[in-house]
């Protein structure tokens, strides 16, 4: 089943009279259950493509489809609604709200989606266990290591049972053991829940985990190949 699709997508940033072509006509289809890496050098358009897939931004031209719906021209609020119900994010920096505990950070998307208190509790407990932090729910982000914070972010991304999780350089700020733990958590959850993961990276150790690698170069898809997965 097709989870996301981009058709002839371009994205041009204008700063004064200077135009930067981040994407120059990208076509890509993401199927359900994929564990896909977007790779390429800095400036190749990885993050821009993730932002378009995540409805954080709109393409200059072309179309982006999420779960079959064209999201290219949605307004700010409609895109927020789409993100809330369908997409989870994991960022390079440990994107947790510092004033909330791990439990409350995971709770936030559930609150936004209107889940009841008992539903929330059951789901958060399940997710904390799933990312190996069953005993750290009451910890604030500054009481957690970088790897633990990123695992909380993974749990939060999964909270609303999205069909697509987008991760932008999820291990870039982690040491090797923590990076490995995060990637293993992501692959396990992909395998167990069937949720689709698309992540941008240029770390070869991370690319090894992908089953599909899409290489971007100068705003275009240069290569798209299926690969063996490290388990």
């Amino acid at each position, binding site marked *: 089943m097709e989870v996301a699709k981009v058709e002839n997508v371009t994205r041009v940033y204008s700063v004064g009279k200077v135009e930067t072509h981040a994407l120059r006509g990208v076509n890509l289809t993401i199927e359900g259950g994929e564990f896909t890496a977007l790779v390429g050098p800095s400036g190749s358009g990885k993050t821009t493509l993730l932002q378009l897939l995540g409805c954080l931004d709109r393409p200059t031209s072309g179309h982006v489809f999420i779960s079959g719906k064209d999201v290219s021209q949605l307004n*700010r609020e409609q895109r927020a*609604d*789409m993100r*809330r*119900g369908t997409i989870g994010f994991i*960022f390079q920096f440990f*994107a947790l709200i*510092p004033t909330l505990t791990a439990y409350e950070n995971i709770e936030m998307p559930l609150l936004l989606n209107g889940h009841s208190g008992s539903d929330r509790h059951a789901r958060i407990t399940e997710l904390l266990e799933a990312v190996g932090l069953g005993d750290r729910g009451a910890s604030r982000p500054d009481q957690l290591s970088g790897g633990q914070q990123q695992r909380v972010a993974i749990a939060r991304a999964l909270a609303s049972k999205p069909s697509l999780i987008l991760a932008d350089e999820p291990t870039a700020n982690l040491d090797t053991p923590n990076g490995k733990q995060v990637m293993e958590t992501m692959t396990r959850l992909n395998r167990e829940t069937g949720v689709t993961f698309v992540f941008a990276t240029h770390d070869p150790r991370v690319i090894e985990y992908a089953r599909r690698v899409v290489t971007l170069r100068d705003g275009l898809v240069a290569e798209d190949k299926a690969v063996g997965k490290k388990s």
Partner: protein
Amino acid sequence: MIQMLKLAFRNLGRNRRRSFFSALAMGLALALLLLMASFIEGEMGNAIESTIRLQSGHLQVRAASYDEAKTSLKWEDLIENPEQVAAPIASLAPVAAATPRLYASGFITTRNEAAGVRVIGIDPNSEANAPYRQGMVEGAFLAPDDREGVLIGQSLARRLDLSTGDTVNLSVNTSSGDVDEQPFTIRGIYSTGTSGFDGLTVLLPLAKAQAFTGAENRASTIFVLLRDTSQTEAVVAALQAPGYKVLTWQDMNDLLIQTEQLSSSYMGFFYLIVLGIAATVIVNTQIMSVYERTREIGILSAIGMRGRRLMAIFLTECGLLAVGGILLGLIVGGVVIAYLTRYGFPLNFEGFGITGMLFSDTIYTRLTVQDTVQLTLMSFIVTLLAGLYPAVLASRMEPVAALRAER
């Protein structure tokens, strides 16, 4: 909603000192407003009460042709047989006291000094004289048959360096248009707590005043005090009679009432300035907060929080700041006002009485429930309005740009 409050509360807790000082700015503004409102209420309320008690009464019955500005003593401008006119008025249920008074302008001279004065002939037995009787600071009150004694106010006594038993010369205009002069002995010195009145007023028995001015059995007015100010209009109707005019305290104190209304307008302007300054502090704090938390705004937006909800978070923070500030303001303002309500704030308004307004030498603050509720609500609303711009700023941030922000 509870989660929203929790989040807002914790956000304020990130920088406790800054949040405290923001709330304090609003709190001090509210305290200042409450103090000013209670001060004006106390000052104007007291001025009206003093003016009624000492100068105008609630009502006055005068001859139709009497001109107060000229302090006329012509017989045709005066009330003949005033006791007979006053007696039926005094018998009305809402009336506390009705007494004839005779007004004359005059001049008091001592060996070294002189001063212009207002001479009032009073019936010493009337209850309307309670403010003078109770305010005696030395000597004795006047007796109805005293032919040589006067009472003078404390501030006039100080100005002319007079004390009980001293002799002064009093000159007055008379009904015939001449000036008459006689020596009088100061029987006592009174203080009404209103220097403007005490510095200008000489009291003498009505019978002596009538003889001295040539008014004979006549008075300038029937001075009426009511048990309840709100019954003024009802009593006016009962007092109407041909050849007389009945003036209410509002008719006689037009300037005072206008001053009260003007001060209310000025206070409204003053409130806006003070709250505007406090609002600037809140705006500044919240804008700093928005910029410090730009990346968080991006994260919340990325997980699907709508702009309105982001706005609500920042407005809730402002609401909490407002509640904290209001509590501080009510405590600080309440303590200061409670002290000034009990002990008063000394002011010297000597000389103001000449304009027809009698301000007490000590202002006792008077805080009304209406002022407290109005100013508290105003502070709350202004704080929320101050938070509106930063909240809109947060809600309109593009998530991509917000996520790129430096931590």
